[in-house]
């Protein structure tokens, strides 16, 4: 009977009604996905004649056409490269910086902390031009490495603040005991503090995966001159620009591009939910 906000009489009937209403709502909610799947299996002539969701003839060739014409394999690899690369960089750099800012008192700390926090609100449109110019100057403006670096810089500030908040709450005794034992600072961070911050690491990993997978402005600008390093998002967008008539091919390409994330999400759902929840709790 706990956590029952909306009334408490005849709970079972009420629950059944809520479940029914939610089922209908959720079906409408994910209808775009169902529709996309259905369209990806129809022929291009059928989509105009058959508004239903079950294809008359299952046109699997849409998938092979999308795979080759939209260059999906290549874009998959690029997206994966950027996501994994930025993940490693971001987790390492922000956990360290958050640890220092959250637990150490040193000259310059306050200035650095205030400067970091005050940039949270800076919109991407503000920084995109200098970022592009900087990468150009380094000769990385048309390379996957450059894209990975810039993607890492995207949400870094929020992560540092989250880590700093989390680390500052941990008890002092842990470090002191370790220090008495003669453990080095680095070992304290690597073997004691970082494992303790596992929930926050998970949060940052999940948020960075979402950022990297959804990012668009940065990859669009960086791949303007080099279509070979397009990510999935930009590749699909370009495919849409080139093919205005091939609806089924596009639906197939779209389906291919969401399958890995959806599988990953369903498998790691618990971590996704807990990780994101950690962002507000921290």
């Amino acid at each position, binding site marked *: 009977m706990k956590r029952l906000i909306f009334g408490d009489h005849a709970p079972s009937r009420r629950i059944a009604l809520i479940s029914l209403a939610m089922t209908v709502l959720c079906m409408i909610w994910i209808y775009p996905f169902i529709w996309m799947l259905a369209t990806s299996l129809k022929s291009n002539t059928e989509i105009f004649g058959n508004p239903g969701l079950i294809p008359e003839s299952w046109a699997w060739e849409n998938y092979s056409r999308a795979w080759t014409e939209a260059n999906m394999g290549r874009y998959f690899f690029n997206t994966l490269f950027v996501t994994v690369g930025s993940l490693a960089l971001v987790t390492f750099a922000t956990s360290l910086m958050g640890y220092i800012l959250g637990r150490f008192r040193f000259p310059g700390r306050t200035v650095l902390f205030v400067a970091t926090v005050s940039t949270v609100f800076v919109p991407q*449109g503000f920084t995109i031009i200098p970022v592009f110019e900087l990468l150009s100057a380094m000769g990385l403006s048309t390379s996957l490495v450059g894209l990975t670096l810039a993607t890492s810089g995207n949400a870094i500030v929020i992560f540092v603040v989250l880590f700093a908040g989390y680390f500052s709450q941990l008890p002092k005794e842990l470090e002191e005991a370790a220090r008495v034992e003669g453990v080095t600072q680095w070992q304290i961070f690597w073997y004691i503090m970082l494992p303790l911050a596992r929930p926050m690491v998970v949060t940052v990993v999940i948020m960075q995966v979402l950022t990297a997978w*959804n990012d668009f402005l940065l990859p669009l600008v960086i791949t303007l001159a080099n279509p070979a390093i397009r990510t999935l998002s930009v590749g699909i967008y370009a495919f849409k620009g080139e093919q205005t008539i091939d609806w089924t091919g596009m639906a197939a390409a779209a389906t291919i591009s969401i399958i890995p994330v959806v599988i990953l999400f369903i498998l790691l759902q618990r971590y996704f939910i807990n990780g994101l929840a950690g962002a507000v709790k921290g």
Partner: protein
Amino acid sequence: MTLLHTLYRHRFAYLMLVPGLILSGMFVFYPIFAAVFYAMQDWSGFNADIKFVGLQNFVNLFQDPIFWNAFGRSIYFLLGTVPAQLVLSLLLAMVLNNQLLKLSNLFRTMVFLPVVTPVAVIGIVWTFLLSPFNGPINGLLLDIGLISRPIDFLGSSDTVMPSVIGVYVWKWLGITLIYWLAALQTVPDDVYDAAKLDNCKGLRLVVLVVLPIIMPFAVAITLITMVSALNVFPLIMSMTNGGPFFGSEVMEIFIYRTAFASDDGTIPRLGYAAAAGVLFGMMILGLTILQSLATRMARRRAEGMA
């Protein structure tokens, strides 16, 4: 000597800051200063022909109706998405937080599905769904007789912003839902029991008991939601390219178009675009400060009354 001494004493802290400082220096701090510098230049970005013009770009921006329209649309977008997203997801979270609801996790997964879908895919699918040529939404509206001819949702300047706002809320509602669920889980069970004894339920329970407890979270959640709503570029770009006739051109599209892809064939204006970015960033900062001042004043007044 003393300075060196201090630096040496804290050498570990400074050393460990290096990776984070390099990344944030390159992609957060440096770009902010560089943007201000570029904003004072007349520069196409593609050659060495760069000229210092002081505040001229800003003066021009103040007189540029396209800039103000884009700015207005960004604010419109913020006001259209953030409250709707916060309220709808809170309601949903309260329903899903019910422990007796066995399918709660399944519903949550379904609502979360758009969040993990790449924006470009969302853009494509919704362009089809909203299409006036055989799009299923127009088909449904025609069938039930609500409209007599198809609506060009993304092709008419009256409907394009509400459509984009609707899709944005649909895409990101799942993430706000998770935040609210996390907040609701911190409300202890005995609070509900006590409220029940006092015969406090329904809306009164929510407003008088639950909301005050999750208030600290609400501030953080509102902040995260607002920051996210400033980055709408991908969705609008993949749905409308800022069209029709600039009808959905928000600030970031304006900046991108001016800096990288002026489709009217004129030379890109990197300096001008940077100035727009700086001006927009400062206005957002101003709004944030105003808002936090207002919140603080409201809180103080509430405390004074209590």
